[in-house]
């Protein structure tokens, strides 16, 4: 992943993870796996984990501990009402940003 990609991802990863959780509740490892499937191949497990800790502390997700056959209990994350509201705001911000950038790109290529 390029340096630029890493930097841009920093600002959007929270929204991406919330968007993944809005489809269905997930384990931390599944979230990382999904991100890798989406093409973010270099994303670190710890980066996603730290982000999950943060959104949990901010009260955007509900966490349920589920016993697993190997290793410690796994945490399942699902979006709550605050998380959904935050995600809606993320998409509004994202639309604003992409529209502006698209028009800037169009002007620049003329």
């Amino acid at each position, binding site marked *: 992943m390029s340096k630029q990609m890493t930097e841009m991802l920093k600002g959007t990863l929270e929204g991406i993870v919330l968007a993944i959780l809005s489809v269905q509740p997930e384990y931390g490892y599944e979230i990382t796996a999904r991100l890798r499937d989406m093409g973010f191949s270099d994303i670190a497990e710890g980066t996603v984990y730290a982000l999950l800790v943060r959104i949990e502390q901010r009260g955007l997700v509900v966490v349920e501990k589920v016993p697993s056959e190997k*290793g*410690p209990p796994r945490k399942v994350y699902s979006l709550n009402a605050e998380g959904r509201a935050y995600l809606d705001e993320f998409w509004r911000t994202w639309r604003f940003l992409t529209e502006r950038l698209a028009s800037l790109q169009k002007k620049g290529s003329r």
Partner: protein
Amino acid sequence: MFISRFIKWVIGEKKQWRQYKTRAKQLPASYRTALEALERYLMYFGTGGDGTAIYADLLDLFEQSAANRTPIRQIVGEDPVEFIETFVRNYPKGQWILRERERLTQALERAAAEQTQGS
């Protein structure tokens, strides 16, 4: 009252720390080495008031990663310093740096306000 609460707190922390250490010892060698390196860094860097939670969460991460056989590089990424410092920022409770940030913000506010009045 205060003394007894203090003793209880110290004993509680010590107990949690011993439990953490016991679990950390059970990790596969390379995961343990990585966790101990992060632990050492945190000792110097500081975790603020909420020291036990961050160690417990890091341990959870390494236990899960060991169970899933996630390579260490894939856990912490290419830059372990950035990883741990981002991680620490999730635990701001009682952290001294928060007070200093507050102090900095207020000092700049005062300076800016003085300037507006002066001009």
